[in-house]
Every structure is written in structure tokens, then in C-alpha cells.
């Protein structure tokens, strides 16, 4: 995925990557070439193709309400994917996001049983999300532990707490008005979730591409030591990113709980895979250092459309997960194979 970088970011994996120092061009390609031949444009092409295939494959696809339903396949995951994108760009990862959803949803269900109102439920959800993010952030930045293992641990810990609380039971008693977050429509077929998705996309896009904070995130991913010596508080930035991921997981949990109207400990099981896949499909370098929010938005659309298309064709859910797994590997593998062939 060197297309988004300048080719000299190299590999941060600590391995002897063969392509560390690619050719550095002495001039930029013409603007139209850069605009057309980048990851996001290619992805847009893929999205358009899938859209067309779907509309030919099923006569029901082009119905506005059907399309509106299709957006629910990705809005919640994509909201987390934005925060995850920043985290991966900074060189960390959070595999516990789906488990944060489970814990947040369980806390909401617990509070709802005590008769807490909707503002209270949202408050509880946000607090639990923040706490989970802070816990991950504490272990990674202050204790200095590798984020992969930490979040594998918290992945079982957070969901494990849900299992302790709920066992084989479920919370189903929620205030009726809570359903607006996951089932409400702002205008015609435009759902509340879709609006929330677009707003968060805008916020994260501005945060990553237009603020100093966003630049530091990219810089940390490219060269953590260099960033540290440039006076950037690397640990603090990473801690904030873990908090953000926790908060976005809580937002997604509110939407999902509201949409399903119930909480089981197995809620959102396996979502971390799809979220990481959206991020990587969106052109974010899995080793950190580069990536864009528009890419992630388009990737979310692509994955959502494919899921929906499979659904229309009655493909079982587990086949879908094979597809996601394959996609995750192919999206990373193909550009590398391509680069290897191109360099001879």
C-alpha cells in the first residue's frame, strides 16, 4: 500500500523488508494521474462495480428502502473503523472493540433494569467505553506493553465480564424511545445511524487530515522515535487514540443495542475482524504511517454492499466471514505481489 505514502516510509516491522528504499521520484506525477491512480479511486471503482452487479443480480436491490436497510450493515462497524484507522496509522491496534461493545451493551442493559432513562443510558455507555479505552491505553502506553497482546487479553476480559453478568440470559427491557438510535429515521429513508456515520466520518476526516493532532498521528506511525525526539508526546497521543476507540465502540454499542433491542454476551461477536478489514481495505497501511478517512468510508460502503448483496442471494453468514477473511489477506497481499512483479 505504498501508493498513499511517498515510498520511503519503509517497513516498521523490524524485519528485513526487501522494498525498504523504493525509487524516489524526482518529480510528482501529473495531477490527473495522481487523482485517478490512487487507492481511493480504485476502491470507488470497485464500489461502483459491486453496486451494478447487485442491481443486476437482484431486482429488489435498487429500492430506496432496501438500500437504506443495507447501510445498517456497515454504519456501526464503520464508526469504530474510523477510530481504529487512526490507531493503526499510529502503529497500534485494538482487537478488543467488539468486546467493548458487549460490555457497554451489558452495562446499558443493567442500568435499564434499574430504571435509568435514556440520557442516563447514553451516559453509562460513554463512561464504560471511555473506561475500556483508558484501560487499554494505560496498559499500552504507561505500562509499555504490546497492543496486540493487551487487546487480545482485554478482548476476552471485557466479553468475559459480560458473560459473568449475563451467563445464558439476556437483557431485553429497554425504554421504548431508545430504539430511535438504531431504528429511527431523520428524513424519509435517511436513518439516524446513517447521519451519525456521515457526521463521524466528517469529524474524523478533519481530525486526521486537517489538524495538527492528525499530522502527529501519521508522524508517530512513520517514525515513533523521530516523533518523540521532535517533542511529540507519543504516549499521550496514543492514549487519546485508545480513548477515542473506546468512545466510538460505545457509540456503536448504543446504536446496536437500540437496533436489536436486546443484549446477549455474544453481541457483535467477531466484529473486530470486519472492522480491521474495513480499515485495511480503505488503504490504511497495517504497519502504520499512512491512510485516509475517505478510503475507510468507501471501504465501509464496499463491504456493506457486498454483505447486503450476499444477503439478497441467500448466502449464509459464515460464507460471508470466509469472504471477509480472504478479502483481508488479498487486499494486503495483492499490492505486494504487484510491487514484486513490477520491480522484477
Amino acid at each position: 500500500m505504498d501508493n498513499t505514502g511517498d515510498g520511503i516510509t519503509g517497513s516498521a516491522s523490524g524485519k528485513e523488508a526487501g522494498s525498504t528504499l523504493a525509487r524516489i521520484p524526482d518529480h510528482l506525477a501529473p495531477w490527473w494521474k495522481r487523482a485517478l491512480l490512487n487507492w481511493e479511486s480504485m476502491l470507488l471503482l470497485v464500489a461502483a462495480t459491486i453496486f451494478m452487479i447487485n442491481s443486476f443480480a437482484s431486482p429488489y436491490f435498487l429500492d430506496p428502502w432496501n438500500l437504506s436497510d443495507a447501510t445498517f450493515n456497515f454504519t456501526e462497524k464503520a464508526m469504530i473503523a474510523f477510530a481504529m484507522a487512526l490507531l493503526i496509522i499510529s502503529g497500534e491496534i485494538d482487537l478488543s472493540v467488539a468486546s467493548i461493545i458487549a460490555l457497554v451493551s451489558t452495562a446499558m442493559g443493567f442500568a435499564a433494569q434499574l430504571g435509568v432513562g435514556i440520557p442516563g443510558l447514553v451516559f453509562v455507555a460513554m463512561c464504560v467505553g471511555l473506561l475500556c479505552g483508558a484501560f487499554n491505553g494505560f496498559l499500552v502506553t504507561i505500562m509499555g506493553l504490546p497492543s496486540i497482546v493487551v487487546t487480545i487479553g482485554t478482548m476476552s476480559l471485557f466479553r468475559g465480564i459480560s458473560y459473568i453478568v449475563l451467563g445464558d440470559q439476556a437483557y431485553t427491557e429497554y425504554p421504548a424511545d431508545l430504539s430511535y438510535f438504531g431504528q429511527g429515521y431523520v428524513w424519509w429513508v435517511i436513518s439516524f445511524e446513517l447521519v451519525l456515520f456521515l457526521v463521524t466520518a466528517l469529524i474524523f476526516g478533519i481530525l486526521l487530515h486537517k489538524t495538527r493532532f492528525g499530522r502527529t498521528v501519521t508522524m508517530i506511525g512513520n517514525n515513533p522515535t523521530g516523533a518523540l525526539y521532535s517533542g511529540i508526546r507519543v504516549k499521550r497521543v496514543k492514549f487519546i487514540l485508545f480513548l477515542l476507540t473506546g468512545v466510538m465502540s460505545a457509540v456503536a454499542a448504543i446504536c446496536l443495542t437500540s437496533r436489536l433491542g436486546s443484549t446477549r454476551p455474544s453481541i457483535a461477536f467477531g466484529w473486530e475482524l470486519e472492522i480491521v478489514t474495513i480499515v485495511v481495505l480503505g488503504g490504511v497501511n497495517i504497519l502504520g504511517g499512512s491512510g485516509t478517512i475517505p478510503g475507510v468510508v468507501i471501504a465501509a460502503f464496499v463491504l456493506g454492499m457486498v454483505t447486503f448483496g450476499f444477503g439478497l442471494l441467500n448466502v449464509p453468514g459464515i460464507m460471508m466471514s470466509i469472504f471477509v477473511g480472504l478479502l483481508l489477506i488479498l487486499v494486503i497481499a495483492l499490492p505486494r505481489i504487484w510491487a514484486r512483479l513490477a520491480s522484477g
Partner: protein
Amino acid sequence: MIKRLLTSRELILAVAILALIALIALKFPAFIETSNLLDAFNDTSPLIILALGQMVVILTRCIDLSVAANLALTGMIVAMINTQFPAVPVPLLIIVAIIAGSLMGALNGLLTWKLDIPPIVVTLGTMTIFRGLVFVLSEGQWINAHEMSASFKAFPRNEFLNLPVLSWFAIIIALLVIVMVSRTSLGRAFYAVGGNPNAAVYAGIDVGRTQFLAFTISGALAGLTGYLWVSRYAVAYVDIAGGFELDVVAACVIGGISIAGGVGTVAGAFLGAIFLGVIKNALPVIGISPFAQLAISGAAIIIAVAFNASYRNTKGRLILKHDEAVNG
């Protein structure tokens, strides 16, 4: 000095396990009856075998999250062969399981080696692919005890010197891995690659190839466990050993295998698995809901990895190591 440091690490764990058993025995004396402890060991054997494979992978700075899915797929393959062709002898099925498992491991290894894709991403992907393939293969059906042949189910339960074959597998594989890591050049290469990949290259070790072989070994052991698991529990379906990869990683981390690579012993992985096994077997005895298991595994991973890190820092290990951990 390093040797003393490592032995003491295993010693701490061994003492912790004994203390845990003693604590349980205070309230429930029946827990320390030999037969119960042997049963607990037998229950833990699949975890031990998988943890030994995972250890080799983690030593080379990789991680294999696909082991449980590999187990499920291999288990389904051998169970289906058994139901279709009951005449196929068990040893042949074991060989099939090991080959199938090592092919899956080799796929992980190839993607890591030849395409330089981070192992966490590779195995996260193959984890779902393998698990999905179980569904494709079985069409979502279960294979139940009555469909399997008697010898298929009996093999891991056969007793030899008062110990079931399943337990013997764990012991023999532990011994084989000890010999491999301490007496073969490949075993030393695992440590070299994880300890300092750059130095390993200059020492003439092919880093990628070593990682590939580590994945293949892990896959082969997962395949073997696939047969043992399915035959012991006498059932094969899509979700067997779901989430078990987390326990396997937990066992390694508890055993002091450094996730940064290059540090860890067979005894550590073995004891780490035993530690989790004792907890799992004790939970129902002391009346804690089995639903608590997931949280306990998670907490154990976090505590162990924090403990490992503080252990390293206080002993002032190589400064370079820290630098590499930051960059990696």
C-alpha cells in the same frame, strides 16, 4: 545468569500452581486425589500441545491465532473420513490430520514469509477462512458419536501405564520440542530470529524461512490436536474449540514466553498450560460459574504480560531490545 533468571521464572510458576492446588485442596480435599489430578492433566493435554506449537511461533516474533480453527477443520476432515471409510486405520488418520494441519500452518507461514504480511493479520484472516471451511465441508451438520467407528473414539482413551494416550501425546511432544529447541540448529534459529532478526541474518539464518517452519510446526500440532479433540469428545461441528486460540496464547504468555520474541522455554509453556488447566478444572469444584472462564483467561493474559514486562525491565535486559520493541 540468564539461565538462572529463566529457571527461577518457571520455579515461580510451579510454586504458584502448587499453591493454587493446595488452596483448592484446603476446602475440597478430593481435588488432590491422584485420579482427579490425572484427569485434570488429561483435560489440559490439548492445551499443552497447542501451547508448545504456539511457543515456537511466538519465539520467532509471530503469533498464530488460527490454531483453534485449524483444529476444528482438521477434526472435521478426519471425522468425515472416518464416517465415510470406517476401515481407514487410526494411525493413518493421525498422519492425515498432521499433514492437513501442517498445510494450513504452511499457508500462514508462506504469507508471512513471502509476502511479508504481519502474522496477526494473516492468522486473523485464515482463522475465519478455516472456520468457514468447516461449515462448507460439513454443510453445517454435526458428526456425532454414533457415526464414528469404535477404534476412532477409543484411541485417545486407551491407557498405557495408567495414563491415557492423550496425556502421553502431551508428554512426548513436550519432550520432542525440548530436543528440537535445545539440540537442533532449527531450534536455536527460532531463538535467534526472535531475539535479534538483524543479527540472525548476519549469522546466516533465513528469518522468513524460520518463521515459515515455526508456523508449519504449530499447524501440524494443531492438526494432531484436531484428531485428538474430535475423537475424545466424540463430536465434530463448526464451533468446536471456538475461541480456544486465546487460551493457547494465554498459556504461552503466562508461561513467560515473551511476545517480543526470542524468550521462552518449553517448561514455561507447559506450566502455563497446566496453570490454566488447574483453574478450569477447579472452577466447577469451587462453585464458580463456567461463564467466568473467559474473563479469567483474559485477566490472566494481561497480568502475565504485565508481569513479564516488569520482570524484564528490572533485570535490565538488552537496551536494544526495548528499542526494537518500540519500532516493532
